[in-house]
């Protein structure tokens, strides 16, 4: 799934490891989500959205909308 996670992370000046620690996941997970190779579960998507103070749809692009 396309997403704006990398951009948001960069705006906060966080490395993948920084974000991984804040989300309590591995750096590999952050990398896989950022590159669209892995779609997070709904609880993890909420956690990401809450961390950045956004709605889920502000970060993740609906597959039906490209």
């Amino acid at each position, binding site marked *: 799934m396309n997403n704006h996670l990398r951009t948001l992370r960069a705006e906060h000046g966080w490395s993948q490891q920084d974000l991984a620690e804040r989300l309590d*996941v591995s750096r590999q997970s952050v990398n896989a989500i950022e*590159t669209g190779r*892995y779609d*997070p579960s709904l609880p993890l998507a909420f956690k990401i959205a809450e961390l950045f103070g956004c709605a889920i749809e502000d970060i993740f692009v609906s597959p039906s909308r490209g």
Partner: protein
Amino acid sequence: MLCSSSAARRYQRRVIILAVVYTALLFSAVYLLNRHLVTGVVAYIVGILPALPVVGFFGAIGMYLTEERDEYLRMLLVRQSLVATGLAMTGATLWGFLEGFDLLPHLVGYAWPILWFGGLGLGACVNHVLERNPA
């Protein structure tokens, strides 16, 4: 395994312990049974003892899957296990038919768990290829 989460470290520790126990029990069983030092029910017990750590390996994988909090790492191991299962079941099916038609010799049943563990290696390769970052 995939990465050094605390669950992965516990898994690795369990696997090392099981491997040591397996080696000790296997050598003991071979020694006792080849020399007919045990018979009857005791022989059955001694014969099955080396199998238990192997069963433990499956248990260790199951425990890792329940303990790992990182869903992406869990997904990787599930995929790895599916590849291993597909390989082992395919191997068992093909060999079984060919053996049934007397085209291949009899193969002991514990060959299939061994192939399954080999399949985990193949699954790791599949993960490596699929999870490579796009250039």
